[in-house]
């Protein structure tokens, strides 16, 4: 079946702008996760949804970052007032509760 999809695949923006990154999980997966991966590093946890609610948002770096999943399927990661340090690959993963996480291809965000 179809895997996790993420759009856009690449996003270039200017410092101070607002961006939205979208994740479409595997059908039937109620758990959804966002990670951020900088060059040469492993993925870093940002937030975890179980259904529509954020079960753990302890990885969000500051209040410029926000994520929603209003219908328990597609999720959007929102970044306000982007900074150059936000440049990274943003990865989304989904799973059945407590099961293996399957990752999407990521969105490469570049803040100029």
């Amino acid at each position, binding site marked *: 079946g179809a895997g996790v999809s993420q759009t856009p695949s690449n996003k270039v923006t200017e410092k101070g702008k607002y961006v939205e990154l979208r994740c479409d999980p595997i059908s039937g997966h109620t758990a959804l996760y966002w990670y951020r991966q900088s060059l040469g590093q*492993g993925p870093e*946890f940002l937030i975890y949804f179980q259904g529509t609610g954020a079960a753990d948002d302890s990885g969000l770096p500051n209040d410029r970052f926000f994520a929603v999943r209003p219908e328990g399927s597609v999720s959007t990661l929102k970044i306000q007032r982007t900074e150059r340090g936000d440049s990274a690959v943003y990865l989304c993963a989904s799973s059945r*509760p*407590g099961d*293996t996480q399957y990752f999407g291809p990521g969105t490469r965000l570049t803040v100029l």
Partner: protein
Amino acid sequence: EDQVTQSPEALRLQEGESSSLNCSYTVSGLRGLFWYRQDPGKGPEFLFTLYSAGEEKEKERLKATLTKKESFLHITAPKPEDSATYLCAVQAPGGSQGNLIFGKGTKLSVKP
């Protein structure tokens, strides 16, 4: 603090030259250790989950093993298509189901 350390950072092998990658972890009460493969420009691809010391899992030329302090990913007679970055992650108790802690990865290059 829960940590995951992978070594070496990079490994170059000739085709057919077997070797091992190491993942050492410091976490109290391991809930699971995961191995992923990541190709350039793509998201991590799930390989194995290990839950308890002494457990082993195999897939084609790869075998993962687990002790109380570390995991090894053994690669037998590698081929050029095995070239990728191999990521190790742990899931600790107390954290949410989303809180995977990743190492920085080992970049494997297999030359024909």
